[in-house]
């Protein structure tokens, strides 16, 4: 545009081919598009790479090794020479409550996701149009998401105590109180608190999906005189399919991996009905001190998580190739 910026831009984009000047020795044929292969400062990957190898890859291998040994508190100091037992831990985990834990985790995660999706979508729809005070409403919707999980669990644990506010209000309403934090009710308590805390995640992803609906689409459907429900159902919601599929997958993974909520809400060991996979792995390691068994359980839960994870990675791979994809 102006004469000051032109030379700079020219050199950057097109000049190498034309200018044999001081930059001559550099091979000039390279265009901007392909990734450079010269002067690769690959050493810059070392700090992050070493850290991640040291704390993720090596421990993962150690975890696999431990799962094949009978490691307990007596052999912990010499874990490399712990007695090798092959797949015995995996066999034992089947009778040590792991199948129940898998079932609890999966059903808890899927129920939580199924309930949070409509709530999140509704919240995104009601904050999509501009109105006075919308910023405040959006801030309120983010509160459960912003609060740390351990804080959410602590306050709900306090409110759901046998003599806590929830039971007091229920008694006043004549419904009668509940033991929320023990027995089989605990399972539904876990789901309720998880829903309360997790729906804004869906809301955020749905909101970004709604914003991708073109203005023309709205105008065209207004011209056609479409009333709100058909428009929402057949025109706007299809735009949300992609974002919601991603949200569904990620939210379910988050629910399955959630350790903080059951741990703080119920303490360890947790009631039988909320013994989710992270809890059973934790308790087997750090309370029963059956390290080998616990590692085997952890590997099995990783395999279960790997299925949705694999779908996710396949879906996101497209974004890796697309330039500038969000």
């Amino acid at each position, binding site marked *: 545009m102006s004469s000051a910026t032109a030379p700079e831009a020219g050199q950057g984009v097109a000049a190498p081919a034309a200018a044999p000047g001081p930059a001559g020795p550099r091979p000039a044929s390279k265009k901007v598009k392909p990734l450079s292969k010269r002067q690769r400062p690959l050493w810059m990957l070392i700090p992050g790479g070493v850290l991640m190898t040291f704390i993720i890859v090596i421990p993962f291998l150690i975890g696999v090794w431990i799962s094949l040994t009978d490691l307990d508190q007596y052999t912990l100091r010499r874990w490399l020479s712990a007695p090798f037992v092959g797949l015995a831990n995996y066999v034992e985990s089947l009778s040590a409550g792991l199948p129940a834990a898998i079932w609890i985790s999966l059903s808890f995660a899927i129920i939580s996701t199924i309930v949070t999706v409509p709530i999140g979508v509704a919240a995104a729809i009601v904050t999509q149009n501009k109105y006075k005070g919308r910023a405040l409403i959006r801030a309120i919707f983010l509160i459960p998401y912003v609060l740390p999980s351990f804080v959410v669990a*602590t306050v709900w644990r306090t409110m759901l105590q046998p003599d806590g506010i929830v039971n007091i209000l229920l008694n006043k309403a004549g419904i009668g109180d509940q033991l929320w934090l023990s027995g089989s009710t605990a399972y539904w308590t876990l789901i309720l608190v998880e829903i309360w805390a997790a729906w804004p995640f869906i809301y955020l992803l749905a909101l970004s999906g709604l914003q991708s609906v073109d203005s023309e689409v709205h105008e065209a459907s207004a011209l056609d005189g479409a009333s709100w429900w058909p428009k929402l159902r057949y025109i706007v919601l299809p735009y949300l399919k992609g974002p919601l599929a991603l949200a569904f997958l990620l939210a379910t993974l988050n629910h399955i991996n959630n350790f903080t909520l059951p741990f703080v809400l119920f303490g360890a060991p947790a009631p039988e009905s909320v013994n989710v996979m992270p809890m059973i792995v934790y308790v087997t390691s750090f309370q029963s001190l059956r390290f080998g068994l616990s590692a085997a359980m952890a590997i099995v839960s990783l395999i279960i998580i790997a299925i949705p994870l694999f779908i996710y990675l396949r879906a996101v791979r497209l974004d890796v190739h697309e330039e500038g*994809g969000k």
Partner: protein
Amino acid sequence: MTTATPTAAAATGRPRKGRAGSEEAHRLMPTPLLAVLTTLLCLMVLIPVAYIVLASLNSDAGVASGEFWPSSFSAQSYTLIWSTVGLSKALVNSLIVAGAVAIASALLAVPTAYVLVRYAFRGRVTILRGLLGFQSIPGTLMLLPVFVLFSSLGSTLGIAIIGTLWGLFIAYLTFAMPFSTWVMVTYLRGLPRELEEAARIDGASNVQILARIIFPLSGPAIVVSGIFAFLLGWNDVLFASVMTRPDTHTAAVALQVFGASMEGGAIPVYSQMMAAALVCAAPVVILYFVFQRYLVGGLTAGSVK
């Protein structure tokens, strides 16, 4: 180039005109339904939050007798928690660890992401996919091996790692790195390459390009990845519950220990629980609302909380 410009101009020009024209066309729902839904959602969030705040401003006896609205307001609970929960030491520990993780991971992520975005090499796509995959590895899987590794390394080298803030720092840093790096990757991918090319022609080295061009341009992404790393450290209970001693407890563990221990007591200290929980949440809430406009975009970019 020439064919692309007119369509781009048209695409950006037209919707703007339309948007100003017809608010009505964008309406997704009749106003009464919208109002009902908004109210319901707000009540769902605000009733528990209001109770938490009110209970924290009540006395322990008042909360125990079942008051929703305090008969007398006092900030007593907020002064008591510093001695009963041991919250000040724990908050300082949390701030040190989470703050250090935030700074270190944001700084480490920039060079890593720069190489991943700008240079082709064998294994690049594998690393990118690994960055996403690592974010979903359950912490419970890694806790035991990391614990074993740290304790045997500690006894081999004759230093304590378990129980110190260093151990926590290294663990959190590693779990924060994949996310921070991914945020930087998505950001750097959108940066134009011309500035770097120009600097290279002027004879700048890789390190100079990184320090003088990439870092200064990456401000927003550094903020986002730093904050998420901070949250990861601040919100963790799993590692902190196993790898800290009472004097290195983080806020999350101190609160959890207090909650578990108070339940045996004769008089429930629910008001103090609520006050302590709110104090633990305060730094996070402040961070969110100060940096809100960076964070909402970052959420959808990196996606795993």
